[in-house]
Structures are given as structure tokens and as C-alpha cells.
């Protein structure tokens, strides 16, 4: 009988793969709809969510998820009539929520929290309960993505067409925001607040280079993301480097290898 190994290393890999299952397809949407900076702002605000969750004594992931949703909602209120562009508002919210979060946590002398764990993740301390939560959240998010995939692709292709043909693009956009907030809440434990967006974007960017269709890109992104988790964890074990950043470095190595391979292939096809 095959037993799931119960050591910190295996738990870390299992948790990481649970995250990439949803980060793959969602990372594609972040790239397609240019949401990288929004994702960044949501991720930064997560620290405020953590602080509030500690004060209110609720689950950290729930706190992060709620605050990310709040950020997305506030941003949707910014329109072209506002005196600041969405870009500037994002900048203000992104950094001030991070700062408020840091200040609030520094007040909480009664609990010992290591802020670095939140900033860069602490995947090797992941518990089975957290893994269960990660997989449950991933399963729900994946279910929504699969169920709403056509509408989401329709919105990505062209919003006007989607609106005219009754796909309700605004609803779909809100759904994407909720999914993004959920993904960031999961990512916090794995790579931390600072590197979350990297793990959304880099595997999807690697996948873009070989994919012919949106579906292929999403599936390749999951594959490259999972490979990054496994590769990064072994790298971390071998060189005694921090796991979160190692995973991102490994993802980048995959991206660069793919870019080089594609460049060489194009060169050889052109007969240079």
C-alpha cells in the first residue's frame, strides 16, 4: 500500500501543488487581462488582512480573502472621471495597506508572529489542516473556473462582443476578482505576500510560449507551476535556501530555458 509520506518536505510539495492547480489558469487571466499590478496590490493588502484576522481572532486565510475583496471593490469604484488614475490608486492602496499591516502587527506584542513568514511564506511549516484548506479552496475555485470558462474566455476575447451576445462580462469580471482574492489567500502560506504574483505570472508566461489555445496555456501553466514547486523544494533542500524564493527562482529558470529554446528554434527555422 502506498502511504503518503508525512514529513515537512512532502507536505510542502503537496501544499504547493494544490496551489498551482488554481494558480495556473488564474495566472493566465492575470496575464491576459493585465491584472498583475492589481494582484500585487491585493497581495500586499494581505498583511493588513492578517493583522485584522489576529485582532478579530478569525482564520488568517479568511482575513486575507476579505481584505483582498475589499481592495478589488474599492478599485472598481475608480473610473475615468476620478481625479486619480486607477494605476495611482493601486499604488496608494498597495503600499499603504502593507504599511498599515506592518504597523498593526508591531503593536501586537502579546503574540509572537514572524512577519517574515508572511512576507516570504513558510511552506515547510504547513500543517495537514492547512493542506486540507488549500485543497478545498482550490477545488472550489477550479470548479468555478471550469464552469465559467467559456464566459471568461469570451470576456477576454472582447468585452463588447461578450456584452452584445449576452455573456454578462461585468459578472464574469467580479467572479475573476473573487477568484484572484482566494488564490492570494492560499498563496500567502506558500510563497508569501511579496512573491505571490510571481508564482501566478511566471508559469503562465512560460506556458504562453508553447500554447496554441487558451486551454493549453492554462494546463501548461499548472504543469510548469507544479514543476517549479518540486524543483524549488529540492533546490532549497540541496542548497539550504529559503523555500518560497527558491520556488520562484526555479520558475524563472524554467521560463528562461523555454525562452531560449524557442529563440533557438526560430533561428534554426529561419535558416540563420
Amino acid at each position, binding site marked *: 500500500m502506498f502511504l503518503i509520506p508525512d514529513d515537512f518536505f512532502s507536505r510542502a510539495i503537496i501544499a504547493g501543488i494544490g496551489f498551482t492547480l488554481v494558480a495556473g489558469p488564474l495566472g493566465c487571466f492575470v496575464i491576459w487581462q493585465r491584472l498583475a499590478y492589481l494582484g500585487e496590490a491585493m497581495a500586499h493588502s494581505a498583511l493588513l488582512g492578517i493583522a485584522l484576522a489576529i485582532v478579530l481572532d478569525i482564520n488568517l486565510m479568511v482575513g486575507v480573502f476579505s481584505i483582498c475583496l475589499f481592495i478589488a471593490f474599492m478599485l472598481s469604484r475608480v473610473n475615468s472621471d476620478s481625479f486619480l488614475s486607477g494605476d495611482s490608486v493601486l499604488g496608494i492602496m498597495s503600499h499603504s495597506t502593507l504599511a498599515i499591516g506592518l504597523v498593526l502587527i508591531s503593536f501586537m506584542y502579546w503574540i509572537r508572529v514572524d512577519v517574515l513568514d508572511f512576507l516570504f511564506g513558510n511552506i515547510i511549516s504547513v500543517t495537514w489542516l492547512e493542506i486540507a484548506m488549500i485543497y478545498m479552496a482550490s477545488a472550489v475555485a477550479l470548479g468555478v473556473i471550469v464552469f465559467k470558462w467559456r464566459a471568461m*474566455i469570451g470576456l477576454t476575447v472582447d468585452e463588447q462582443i461578450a456584452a452584445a451576445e449576452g455573456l454578462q462580462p461585468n459578472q464574469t469580471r467580479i467572479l475573476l476578482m473573487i477568484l484572484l482574492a482566494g488564490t492570494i489567500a492560499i498563496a500567502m502560506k506558500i510563497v508569501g505576500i511579496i512573491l505571490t504574483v510571481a508564482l501566478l505570472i511566471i508559469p503562465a508566461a512560460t506556458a504562453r510560449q508553447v500554447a496554441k489555445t487558451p486551454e493549453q496555456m492554462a494546463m501548461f501553466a499548472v504543469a510548469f507551476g507544479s514543476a517549479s514547486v518540486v524543483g524549488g523544494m529540492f533546490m532549497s533542500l540541496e542548497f539550504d535556501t529559503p523555500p518560497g524564493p527558491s520556488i520562484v527562482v526555479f520558475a524563472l529558470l524554467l521560463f528562461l530555458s523555454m525562452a531560449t529554446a524557442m529563440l533557438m528554434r526560430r533561428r534554426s527555422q529561419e535558416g540563420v
Partner: protein
Amino acid sequence: MKNDSDNSVLAKLQSVGVRRNNRWLVRDIDLTMHRGEIVSLIGPNGSGKTTVTKILAGSLEPDFGSVQRPPNIKIGYVPQSVTLDSTLPMTVQRLMDVPQPVDRSELIKVLTELDIQHLANASVQKLSGGEFQRALLARALLRKPDLLILDEPTQGLDVHGEALLFNRIAKIRDRMNCGILIVRHDLHLVMVQTDTVVCMNVHICCTGTPERVQKDEAYLNLFGKKAFEARALYSHLHDHDHRLDGSIKDL
């Protein structure tokens, strides 16, 4: 004019108005679309044409007036300009399945009809403007729409390409028996096959057959006699097409 009460009506707007920021985008619009009818909606920039198409398509609820549409009317929409983000991998064939997968043999038939079957596996971002436009038209057609809305379909086409497209649109109408709304800001050349021209500038200035609208006082006031006279009209009657090397090919 056909009888409005029959079941060929696809959409009926009555005294429809939309007001935003204390300004009328459109007002007092009466417009009825029938099955098998080609309507050209013309008007200068900012005259509210797009607002009317949105109301027809049901994506915008007007503030005033009434809209009657039979339930489950299928809209096919080909927008004015679409630029597909280069980050989205998309072949012509995959684009046809947005939003719903379509029948393969039907797909090949429509692509052939629009002369882009050889591009089925090409990446959408590598198409020329005209090819992409036809791909978008093919996608809209594969939805088997009851009402096909074409927003500035001839943008970027030369006179010959325009005539070719108009022929194709007329054929589509005959084959699919759908209503077709063509939106244009160029008023001087409407499609020969147009049944009704609706000329608007916030409100509807005049309606009628192409011949009638041309002589209408409101039309002349709106676009100016001078501008009209500066162009000569010539009804192309192409009975052939050219291959790339210039040789003649029968249509």
C-alpha cells in the same frame, strides 16, 4: 414596410431615449428590425449609433421608451475594432468556438464561404485586418444569429473589398434569413442591397429606402450637399474576381 405585428420582428424600439450626464445620447428612437431585412444605420461620429446597437442587443436598458424583443433572440455581433491581446494564444479555429463549441463541418463551410479556410490553424494575431474581420464575421455567423450586428464592417477595406463584403452579407441574409444591422458613419456609400436606411443624429433624422434618404432634406442638412457632391457614386457589378497574379477568376 412589413407589418410590425407579424412574428418576423426581431426587435422593436418605441420612443427610446438614453440620458447620461444631463445629455441625451439618443432620444425618440423608433426602430424595428425584421427577419431577412438589411438595415443600414448611418450617422456622424457621436450620433449615438453604438448606443442604439447596445439597446438592440439588450446589453443596455434605455431610460425612456419601450423595447420589445422576442425572448431568446440570438445576437451575432461584429464590433468595429477588436485587437486581441497578443498574450492570448488563439487560432482562427479556436476563435470560432467562442463562446460555444460549434459543429466542425459547419465551421469549415463558413470559413470557406468567407475565404479564410486556409487560415484555420493560423494564430489570430498574425492575420491582416481584413482577414481578422472576416474571422470575426465567421464566428458571429456560426452562432446562427437571428440578428447580426456589423459595426463599421468596411473599415480598412478598399472599394473592391467593400463590394465583395456587401455581396457576402447579402448572401448571408438570403441563406440564414436573419436580420442584419450595418452601422456606418460613412453616409455616402450604403450597401446596394440595403432595404432600409436609418439616418440618425441623436434622434432619427430620416428613414427609408436608399433612394429616398438620399433626397431627404434632413439627410442633406446633416451631411451637407457639398460633401455628397464631392463623391461620385458608382454601383459596382463585379462578375469576376482577381487572383494574386492578376488573372481573372469567376465568382
